[in-house]
């Protein structure tokens, strides 16, 4: 008995020694700046990137699986636990390796495991296999085990025990795993009452594949995708049909990267925070409420009201006409002509076929109530939103090919002076700037609709008035110069002589710089002056002249074997 105790103590010391060695190894790896694929920590940016902006990576399913394997292997070696417990640790720390390093340093191994709800018995690491563990749970000489779920007796080969030592027959384990997969579980815990030990992944997979291969496949996919859903730095591309990529954003740590706008290699462009289409400088909650891109939002409701109703000249309630007669009576008792919205008497002695300018020689203006003002207010913002959205489509679909043709013509035309004019890049560069600003303008009207008098709760009314004035001044200037740039490019795309081409280039270059400055100024005004006024804090993506960040394909990992330290990737 005493000898046996000494032996146990000896093994415990051996475990400590191994832990120290692993810790030292990991420190060396840290010095090499080797981090997991799923970490938010930054990799060195490509050399051509000189700006301080979020670096985006596009991760395929294969790279994700390989990277997950690497993270699991690192944790298994670092903490000396089996695969399923390594996964539980990573999930608990949202797949951030640096958090596990920090916690291990601060708390030590046992507290780290306890904190994550991982049950690891000290004896387990010294036993050679599961058969020894099971032997401990049975009386000496026993050749059969009673399963406490189905109350049948089984030979040792038909039962399985988990880290905790609780033993049940394989049939019951299998049905338990299948039910857990149906419930949406990722990692199964022991069947025993109140036992929280996590089941060995290899056992789960082996038993499920035998009887429930569909559930086994679903579990594998769920385990792979869990790290994306748990991580703040990684999210799925929202493309439909799904391109299969996840996008990771590495930032400077200030949190700004969470609001980045990302372009996936498959072509989808989206806001990293909300997953919807890119919408800056309008914040996520306002854009979502507007709902123009998906339908069912406030814009659809108001569009229907504007298109299908008139407002009563007396009480401004919306009125929908049914039937052909244009003589309509409101519930407040007022009679009106549906065609022009004017008030009439009960006998409808009203003629309005002639068009009249507002403020002309007509009758007295009716004082407008809140509902009517709201309709006019919405129409002001919505019309400009729609106009700029349509202009973007025209400038992309029709002006774009014309600009490309112009660039080819410039390259081929030997009669033009060489001094810069024959450089074919200026039309495309100016066109890109035009498209960028044309995208920003409709979104700025959505922001303004909700920000100014749209019910947004703000503090400090005086600051709001000043900020609104600055914003709308920038917006107006941007709108004006965008129209001039659009006209300039449209004119330049038509056949012209050399002098006109030279002038067009000079104007386009100047206007491109002007609109970029105005656009950047508007973003700064929104971020620094308008949004801080909101009672409920909001953020927007930082301004970048070239728009959303292009996600680069993440290089596939070279090694998927477990146990060996991963090679440095540079």
């Amino acid at each position: 008995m005493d000898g046996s105790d000494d032996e146990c103590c000896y093994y415990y010391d051996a475990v400590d020694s191994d832990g120290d060695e692993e810790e030292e190894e990991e420190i060396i790896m840290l010095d090499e700046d080797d981090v997991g694929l799923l970490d938010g920590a930054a990799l060195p940016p490509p050399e051509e990137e000189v700006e301080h902006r979020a670096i985006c990576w596009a991760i395929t399913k294969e790279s994700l699986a390989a990277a997950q394997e690497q993270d699991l292997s690192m944790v298994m070696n670092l903490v000396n636990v089996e695969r399923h417990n390594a996964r539980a640790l990573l999930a608990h720390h949202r797949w951030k390796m640096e958090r596990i390093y920090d916690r291990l340093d601060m708390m030590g191994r046992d507290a780290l495991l306890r904190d994550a709800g991982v049950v690891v018995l000290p004896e387990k690491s010294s036993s050679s296999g599961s058969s020894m563990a099971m032997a401990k749970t049975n009386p000496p000489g026993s050749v059969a085990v009673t399963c406490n779920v189905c109350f049948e007796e089984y030979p040792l080969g038909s039962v399985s025990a988990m880290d905790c030592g609780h033993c049940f027959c394989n049939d019951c384990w299998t049905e338990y795993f299948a039910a857990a997969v149906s419930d949406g579980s990722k990692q199964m815990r022991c069947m025993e009452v109140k036992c929280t030990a996590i089941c060995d992944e290899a056992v789960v997979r082996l038993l499920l594949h035998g009887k429930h291969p569909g559930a086994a496949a679903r579990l594998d996919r769920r385990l792979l995708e869990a790290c994306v859903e748990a991580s703040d730095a990684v999210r799925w591309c929202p493309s439909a049909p799904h391109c299969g990529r996840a996008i990771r954003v590495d930032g400077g740590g200030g949190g700004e990267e969470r609001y980045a706008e990302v372009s996936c290699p498959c072509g989808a462009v989206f806001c990293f925070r909300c997953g919807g289409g890119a919408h800056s400088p309008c914040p996520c909650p306002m854009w979502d409420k507007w709902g123009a891109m998906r339908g069912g939002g406030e814009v659809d409701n108001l569009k229907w009201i504007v298109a299908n109703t008139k407002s009563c000249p007396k009480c401004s309630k919306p009125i929908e006409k049914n039937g052909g007669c244009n003589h309509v009576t409101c519930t407040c008792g007022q009679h009106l002509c549906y065609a022009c919205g004017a008030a009439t008497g009960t006998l409808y002695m009203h003629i309005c076929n002639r068009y009249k300018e507002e403020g002309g020689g007509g009758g007295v203006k009716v004082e407008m109530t809140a509902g009517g003002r709201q309709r006019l207010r919405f129409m002001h913002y919505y019309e400009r939103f729609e106009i700029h959205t349509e202009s973007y489509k025209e400038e992309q679909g029709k002006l774009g090919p014309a600009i490309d043709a112009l660039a080819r013509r410039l390259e081929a035309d030997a009669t033009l002076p060489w001094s810069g004019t024959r450089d074919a890049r200026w039309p495309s560069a100016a066109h890109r700037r035009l498209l960028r600003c044309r995208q920003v303008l409709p979104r700025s009207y959505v922001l303004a609709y909700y920000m100014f008098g749209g019910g947004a709760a703000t503090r400090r009314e005086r600051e709001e008035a000043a900020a609104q004035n600055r914003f709308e001044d920038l917006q107006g200037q941007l709108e004006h110069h965008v129209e001039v740039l659009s006209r300039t490019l449209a004119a330049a795309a038509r056949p012209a002589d050399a002098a006109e081409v030279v002038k067009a280039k000079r104007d386009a270059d100047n206007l491109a710089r002007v609109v970029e400055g105005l656009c950047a100024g508007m973003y700064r005004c929104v971020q620094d002056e308008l949004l801080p006024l909101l009672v409920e804090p909001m953020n927007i993506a930082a301004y970048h002249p070239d728009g959303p960040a292009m996600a680069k394909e993440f290089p596939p990992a070279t090694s998927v074997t477990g146990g060996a330290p991963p090679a440095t990737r540079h």
Partner: protein
Amino acid sequence: MVDVSRVQKELTECNRDREVSGVSIALHDGSTISHLTGTIAGPQGTPYEGGTFVIDIRLPGGYPFEPPKMQFITKVWHPNISSQNGAICLDILKDQWSPALTLKTALLSLQALLSAPAPDDPQDAVVAQQYLRDYSTFSATARYWTEAFAKNSSTGMEEKVQKLVEMGFPEDMVRSVLKSVNGDENMALEKLCSG
């Protein structure tokens, strides 16, 4: 779908020490093993003492990997049991269920719930409020409900027969058993459950 072998073993195990544990289980209508009727004795030292509480038990297809559905048939005044429909708020019948639990352990947990209510996680808000603010009235009401609904010694023979027949027992057997125990419905139920 239900693991018939396990349930049969559970019935045998549960009824073996019925006198000591105070809980028992029987088939509801004798035709399927997925619909059962359980009984628990009111714990001593509580307002429910002396009462016998009938519980409807339905086993889903995934049992024992899904929890059984239990509901009080006997009206009971308790913070964690609906006084209207007998619905039960108990963690092991919901997310804390484990396949290693049995119907017997579940009934014993219900018995423990009668001894120790958890008013902070109530099923019946009215009863929970009374329990927290006016315990003496709660206790008196619970005792009264036990006398009125869980004992039934004052009701007529025909009513007793009807109740037992509604539980799924044959009428002629019910009448003979009631006669043999001098009309004590609880003892009759115990005899019928023992088969």
